[in-house]
């Protein structure tokens, strides 16, 4: 150990004497992508941040980036001023978004993983089953929102027909698009669309787990649950951790399904149906309060950055093969 320390120390002393040769070729290859990232991401982000510091509304829109500079007043207004129209309803939307993201993520990951485990074995028609199960994912979210909006209708919708008339699970047809049930009316279609792609990803990951591990476990007398807990789950953990993070980000930014289900953006989903992005869109763009809308976007982005940093740090070990 001391020998190694000595070697490193000697090398460090010698380093200044040599001129470092920088190979420009990798940087040259990276340059177009970096430039595109700056143009596509960084410039709009900087411009958006600048907008969040301006009094940019219907009356100053023609001045655009020359609109009056008001510092952090937009942030104070949307976060703390109860009379601010953009702030109105935000706590409810925040609560709904947190519950929605959690529930959709848990359900979609659980169903995706469960079906992937079922498909990770040979049976006739496996390829066909896998293709058919992917169908919900290929339906665009706008279409999902519109279709489920029809399906949830109390009297004409197929869901109540199945629940009440066919399965007799309820004695009356409930409302899904009015009242507290609106929350489930947005969660269920989102899960329905999200789990197939997770299933596909988990299935790919499952097929990379060496079969020898299971054979050895069987020889050691491990039952199915023990094999799942000690082999499958740890092997899938890097994929699960990343997918859960992606799901949470996707669901927090969810917009299309809610917007299309409730009046194609014209309506208000109600106390239990409103999420942050539909609220932000409605109360920023429809109210023409672009500065405040940009401020909310930056708050959301900051929260998401913190979340991703904490998540990555917490699960850093799980995301590597050392786990």
């Amino acid at each position: 150990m001391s020998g190694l320390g000595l070697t490193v120390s000697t090398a460090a002393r010698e380093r200044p004497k040599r001129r470092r040769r920088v190979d420009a070729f990798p940087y040259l290859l990276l340059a177009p992508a970096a430039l595109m990232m700056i143009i596509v991401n960084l410039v709009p982000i900087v411009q958006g941040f600048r907008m969040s510091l301006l009094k940019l509304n219907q009356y100053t829109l023609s001045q655009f980036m020359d609109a009056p500079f008001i510092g952090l007043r937009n942030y104070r207004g949307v976060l703390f001023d109860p009379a601010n129209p953009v702030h109105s309803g935000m706590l409810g939307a925040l609560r709904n978004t947190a519950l929605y993201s959690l529930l959709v993520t848990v359900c979609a990951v659980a169903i995706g993983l469960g079906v992937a485990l079922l498909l990770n074995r040979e049976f006739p028609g496996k390829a066909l089953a896998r293709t058919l199960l992917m169908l919900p994912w290929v339906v665009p979210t706008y279409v999902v929102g519109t279709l489920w909006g029809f399906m949830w209708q109390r009297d004409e919708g197929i869901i109540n027909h199945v629940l009440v008339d066919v399965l007799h699970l309820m004695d009356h047809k409930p409302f899904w698009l009015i009242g507290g049930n609106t929350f489930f009316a947005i969660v269920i279609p989102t899960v329905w669309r999200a789990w197939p792609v997770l299933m596909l990803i988990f299935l790919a990951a499952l097929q990379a787990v060496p079969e020898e591990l299971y054979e050895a476990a069987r020889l050691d007398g491990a039952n199915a649950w023990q094999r799942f807990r000690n082999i499958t789950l740890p092997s899938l953990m890097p994929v699960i951790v990343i997918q859960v993070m992606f799901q949470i980000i996707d669901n927090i930014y969810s917009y299309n399904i809610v917007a299309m289900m409730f009046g194609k953006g014209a309506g208000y989903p109600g106390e239990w149906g409103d999420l942050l992005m539909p609220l932000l869109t409605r109360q920023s763009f429809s109210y023409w309060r672009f500065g405040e809308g940009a401020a909310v976007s930056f708050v959301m982005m900051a929260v998401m950055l913190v979340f991703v940093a904490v998540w990555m740090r917490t699960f850093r070990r799980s995301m590597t093969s050392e786990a």
Partner: protein
Amino acid sequence: MARRCAAAVALGLAAASAGAVELTMWVMPVTTNAQHDVPDLLAPWLAQHPDVHVRVTVLDWESGWNKITAAAASRRGPDLLELGTTWMPAIAAMGGLEALTPRQLAEVDNGSPYYPELWKTTQVFGRSGVYGLPWYADVRAAFYRTDVFRQAGVDPVQAFASWDAFHAALKKINGQVVAGKHVAALAYAGKNDWNVVHNLAPWIWNAGGDMLSADARHSALSTPQALRAIDFYSSLAVEGLVPSNALEKDSDILEGAWVGGDYGVIFSGPWLMRRIFESPPGSVVRSNFDVAPYPAGPHGHATFFGGSNLAIFKGSRHKAEAWELVKYLGGKAPQVQLALVSSMMPARIDAANDPAWTSRHPAYAKLTAIAADGRAYPPIPAWGPLETVYTKHLGQLAELTSGIADQYSVPAMKALIADTVIEADKVLEEAN
């Protein structure tokens, strides 16, 4: 030789481009095939102006607003465009539209051929200047089933004579069975719809209330008259005269269901006529419907008057040609022609009374008569944000009247309206 030919071609092209004018025109989907129908509408004018070419772009109502505001902000847009009557003041206040000159105003008799309420929408409240011409009108009326009224023994003339009579009539027709189908009395959308405010406004006006104070600085929804109207309107759903399942639907679905025979009465606009006549020839509703004005309230039977105007974009480089086209489309013959292909009412009084429109079906003549009581919102630039506030909060009435969130009560309704007014006043405060 080749060089000489190329030079000749270049000169020819330059000469052609120097003489020709290309106008760009943005319109909304005023007909089901506007990309085809609007050029047809322009054809006679283009025949008289062979040096002008018009490029028509059909926007849609969902994305049109963003596109137009972006154009107004950047000063880069079409030469002329269609604007909804409630959009026009906002775009004009942004400086996006060219005001008409006194000479141009004189050419259209200072707006006298048009319905005065629609002419008002070409201006900005409290300011001078006219920014365009009314193009077509959206006028609302009660469409009702004559067979259902007859079977229930209800006289339609009496039914729409007062709120009480209307209420009594709805109670009689509710649940009538016609052609084996249970008919619900009335249909209106609850919350998932862009018509929430337009549906309620006539009731408020007819109660003597208004959407805004006279100076347009405050919301007027909390006045006793407005509250009375909102209470009456809501009570129709609470009593089951509007079935609760209607409250989760949008206008489009409800209109389809009315044409299909599910409801006795619906408040809608002239486009419903097209839908009625597109239904199968033997359908019950097609041969058993009529049109009536809004039930008369304590202060009359006004109806919602909206539609679209035509305006010249501030950044246009061909304002003279654009004005000639706007003026042409604001004329009687093109307005009648548009009404016949679109089923939207002409915005000119003489066109709306033209036999080509009124003789198509007795209902068209009645719509023209009802338009005399048409009323538009005050043309304030902040109407867009204000309507969003109203739509959001008034849509929540459905949560109360459907009976699943809270039971409807006047105090609960008043609390909801109080919240609406606070938010609306905040929007208006910043506009002033």
